[in-house]
């Protein structure tokens, strides 16, 4: 296998399986089927992934070292680690956002849409809202990029503005919105792509602690991955059981509150040092185990 694949070239598709769709009306809004069988094979798969950034003429800085990660369909995975451990790099690698000068080894498989594009949608730490577009128009960027026709995307965007608590701010410029609202518009934009893999890079990392707590409670209630009520259709999803979310954070409580699986990474170069799954029920995570892994 080619050990020096560029990030953009490691996308592979397999099979022609049609992903299951919810019976709800949203099925009509969903883009074409993604080429992965539901269940069975993991939705996102990284195999002994290594990433090194060029530094100077000959040397390079290793950001990731031998990272293997499987993300199943419908799961919400939090990647937890200290600052600078390469967790954002891992997310960018999955999202196909590493530049051509970055040396990548190993492989990443992500689902591919019928248009041949990788079916991931990435949300940056800072909202990335375009200052020349009003709030609703910024949310529509997700649909435009994913090639979803305006007639179906616009009503959906308006509905999501209601559900995200943004009603009345459709025509506001980004600079007129508060930090929390900007992040919600950014997440809404990410959902508008209707892609089955959401990559969230510390979505609330830039917010003050109070707003962040509120936003995390709200995000947990959204049920992005859609494993709560199968078949009902989540507000944000096109298909309830089809979406995977990968969240990058350095906050243990945020990870435990939102995810059903926590992957702990070491300091640079980042390696996976613990993979802790939710036990279900009232206290889903073994907090001590996560903290031990972080301290080791």
């Amino acid at each position, binding site marked *: 296998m080619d050990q020096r694949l560029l990030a953009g070239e490691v996308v592979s598709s397999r099979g022609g399986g049609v992903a299951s769709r919810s019976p709800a009306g949203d099925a009509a809004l969903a883009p074409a089927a993604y080429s992965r069988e539901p269940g069975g094979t993991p939705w996102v798969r990284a195999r002994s992934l290594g990433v090194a950034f060029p530094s100077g003429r000959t040397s390079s800085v290793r950001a990731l070292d031998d990272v293997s990660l499987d993300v199943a369909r419908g799961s919400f995975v939090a990647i937890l680690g200290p600052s600078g451990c390469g967790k954002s790099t891992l997310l*960018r690698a999955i*999202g*196909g*956002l590493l530049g051509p000068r970055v040396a990548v080894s190993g492989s990443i498989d992500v689902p591919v849409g019928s248009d041949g*594009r*990788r*079916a*991931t*949608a*990435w*949300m*940056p730490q*800072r909202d*990335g809202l*375009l*200052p*020349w*577009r009003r709030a609703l128009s910024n949310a529509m*960027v*997700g649909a*435009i*990029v*994913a090639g979803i026709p305006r007639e179906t995307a616009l009503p959906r965007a308006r509905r999501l503005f209601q559900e995200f608590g943004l009603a009345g701010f459709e025509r506001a*410029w980004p*600079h007129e919105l508060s930090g929390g609202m900007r992040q919600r518009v950014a997440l809404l*934009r*990410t959902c508008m*792509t209707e*892609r089955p893999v959401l*990559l969230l890079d510390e979505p609330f990392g830039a917010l003050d602690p109070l707003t962040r707590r509120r936003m995390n409670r709200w995000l947990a209630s959204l049920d992005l991955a859609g494993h709560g009520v199968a078949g009902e259709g989540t507000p944000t999803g096109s298909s309830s059981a089809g979406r995977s979310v990968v969240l990058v954070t350095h906050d243990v409580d945020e990870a435990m509150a939102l995810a059903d699986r926590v992957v702990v990474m070491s300091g640079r170069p980042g390696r996976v040092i613990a993979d802790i799954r939710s036990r279900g029920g009232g206290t889903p995570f073994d907090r001590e185990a996560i903290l031990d892994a972080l301290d080791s």
Partner: protein
Amino acid sequence: MSRTRRVVVGGATVVLIVAAWDAAVRFGDLPPFLLPSPTRVVATAMAHADSLGAHVATTATEAVLGLALGGVVGWVLAFVTTSVPVTAQVAQPIVVLSQTVPTVVLAPLTILWVGFGLTSKVILVALTVFFPVLISTSAAIRGVDAEHADTVAGLGGSRLHQLTLVRLPASLPSALAGLRIAGTYAVGAAVVSEYLAGESGLGVFIQRSRTAYAVDQMFVGIALIAILAGSLVLAISALQRVATPWATSSVRL
């Protein structure tokens, strides 16, 4: 609030200069063939109002068409040179040459090649105008926020999406700022090319006045050039407000 203030202060400055000019003529005992008084200039303008209309129209047409042509060429060239590095290397000596050779030298050549009419004047104006637009637009494109480009790429955007969603709108405020600077040169360039060879326009009017030693008429020409250039800059400012509402509304806040 600040806009009213700007208009008031700007207007007051003009009034003050005209008053000082009037006082200098009145109390300095200057003969009118050296420096005519403002009232005399206004009277001369009234007397020539019929022929002046056509001259102003010619110069304004040349300036506006030249601005439009130069602005579009500068903007497009900025996108081409920033997208394909080779084109930047090819364009650089040509662009520098076009800016180092003065209009006075270029005008006779342009007239020789395309004739005395409107076309040669529009080309000369466009040659002056495209440069500030090219420079400010290129800087804006190179300085596009990496966060915006990453966001569109992270959602799965193509190169075309990067262009239409990020780079084109991001370049617009700078392109218009460059055009506003160009707006002050445009009338001057049109007048110079008319002055050298033309049948109509403020340059022709001033040239004729000069040969007739009609200093008051020359001042009429100067005042009209100033008014025309000022109106163009104001019009471009209005265009900025309409075309880039996000930029101006953040300033207004």
